[in-house]
């Protein structure tokens, strides 16, 4: 048996590593390449009903401890993404998650209904983009009522396809938010999106660098925050969790599992470890399972909540 295999509702993943939304997820060819390099599932760039060019550049800016981005939900629109997902499915058997967003609750419903034409393996509702506040207002994921409404309509329109809701830590209490999503039909919680937003200033010219002035923070800097969020979500729901945020090493991935994640999102790590990062972490996870005598990594999921320390660990 494959020791790093994991499951999400209706799906078996050969690896717990899931390509996070917005990373190499615009085209069928790019998604298929990442799938062939060891991702257990891939997530598309979030798409809406209409094409969007997003914010001007610089919209993606690495700094010493992470990456800022204000891409601004650029995407080719649902019509094109349906084609991309179909083209992807013709090339890869690795599960694909369609990430959708809407400006309104109704738009979430419309884009979900359309996305079904592509028969994705899961729909992920992105209620947590921090970069469109000027245009969209407060993210749906920051408010219990709106988050419940979006979850409800996406679940209703998704029919038999499982629904993940992607949450942000920029909300009153992410654990309770996850509970609300569960009550309204979510099958999976993805946590977290980028945090902040943050800002960087070019001192020589005394102005913020990002075109939108601010951008969500991802990468190594956010790992502890993402891990804590996954921990809280696990405390409040029994839903499977895709733990995303700052994972760049095997140890981070294991920590995510121990905090309660069933699968682990990989986004910014593609910058730090290249596209080979899926292979590298997969190998590390297999090694971890072997070294700890685990037939399946599933045995460590959530163990940081309850498990007494292993004997001989000195604790």
């Amino acid at each position, binding site marked *: 048996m494959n020791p790093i295999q994991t499951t999400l509702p209706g799906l078996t993943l050969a690896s717990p590593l899931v390509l996070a939304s917005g990373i190499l997820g615009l085209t069928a060819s790019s998604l298929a390449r990442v799938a062939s390099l060891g991702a257990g599932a891939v997530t598309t760039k979030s798409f809406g009903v209409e094409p969007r060019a997003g914010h001007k550049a610089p*919209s993606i800016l690495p700094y010493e401890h992470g990456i800022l981005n204000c891409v601004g939900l650029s995407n080719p629109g649902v019509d094109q993404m349906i084609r991309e997902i179909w083209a992807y499915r013709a090339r890869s058997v690795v599960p694909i998650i369609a990430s959708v967003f809407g400006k309104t609750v109704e738009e979430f419903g419309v884009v979900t209904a359309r996305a079904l034409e592509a028969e994705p393996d899961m729909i992920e509702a992105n209620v947590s983009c921090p970069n469109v506040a000027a245009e969209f207002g407060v993210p749906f994921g920051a408010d219990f009522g709106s988050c419940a409404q979006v979850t409800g309509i996406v679940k209703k329109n998704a029919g038999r396809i499982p629904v993940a809701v992607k949450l942000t830590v920029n909300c009153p209490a992410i654990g309770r938010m996850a509970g609300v999503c569960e009550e309204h039909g979510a099958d999976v919680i993805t946590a977290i999106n980028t945090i902040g937003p943050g800002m960087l200033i070019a001192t020589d010219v005394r102005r913020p660098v990002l*075109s939108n002035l601010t951008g969500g923070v991802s990468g190594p800097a956010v790992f502890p925050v993402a891990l804590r969020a996954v921990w809280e979500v696990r405390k409040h729901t029994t839903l499977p969790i895709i733990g995303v945020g700052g994972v760049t090493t095997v140890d981070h991935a294991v920590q995510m599992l121990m905090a309660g994640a069933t699968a682990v999102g990989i986004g910014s790590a593609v910058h730090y*470890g*290249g596209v080979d990062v899926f292979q590298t972490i997969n190998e*590390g996870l297999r090694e971890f399972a072997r070294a700890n005598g685990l037939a399946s990594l599933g045995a460590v999921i959530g163990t940081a909540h309850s498990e007494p320390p292993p004997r001989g660990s000195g604790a």
Partner: protein
Amino acid sequence: MMTQAVPPASGMLRMCRILEVVAHSPVLKSFLVPRLFDALPGQFVNLWLPGIDEKPFSISGIRETCMELSVKAVGPFTRRLIECAEGEWVGIRGPFGNGFPLEPGALLVGGGIGMAPIRFLAQMMAERGLPCTLVCGARTRADLIFEPELLRWGCHMSTDDGSCGTCGQVTDLLDGLMAEHPASAVCAAGPEPMLLRIMEFADRWSLPYHISFERYMKCGIGICGQCCVDGSGIRLCIEGPVLNRDQTRLVTEFGLPHRDASGLRPGTPASPLGKR
């Protein structure tokens, strides 16, 4: 259990002042900036005009203390950029991409502003004493950059209107040059229709090639997916922009309009093709 550490980040922004501006024509200028890093010919940087935008440009030369970028005004950003004067601040991220290999005996072919990376390549090969044959094409003499330098290097030139060198397409020159003086490989940059003709030429002569392609770019660090080519899905900002035959063979989008900032290819019909 601590495993691999996070490698140092790259692609970070560096600010510098423009040291010198060289006007080749009203729409073609070169900008000298401090040499912020070492780079290979074919690599590019993202240049930020504070408060305006950030766009990719090939490095067109490196000297002891400075680095050169050469720009053709084609739209809002580049028109604004060529108005920039000595002393103005710009932001630079890079170097990005793979760059050209140095192949002794190669044909180096540049078309229009595509001469920028080819000039850097010629410069580096000359410094290392590696022989090469330089070929340059432009629409008219006014579209040529580095003309005095190219003449000094014995560059073969062609213009569409015959205002400099032979009259016609740069690819028309190549068969003649090959017959005279067989080359070991072709390195090229320029407008895509020209590059596709160069690929045919290289196939005809069974020559290895290394060709620099452009696609819409955002991050430069291989995460946004904007520059991925259909077919193989490789990223031109990391695995490219210079592709060899094994890589171009897998690209299925040559000859099509490029995807724009949204990821949509202009001219794509609005409604999806439907199922299966």
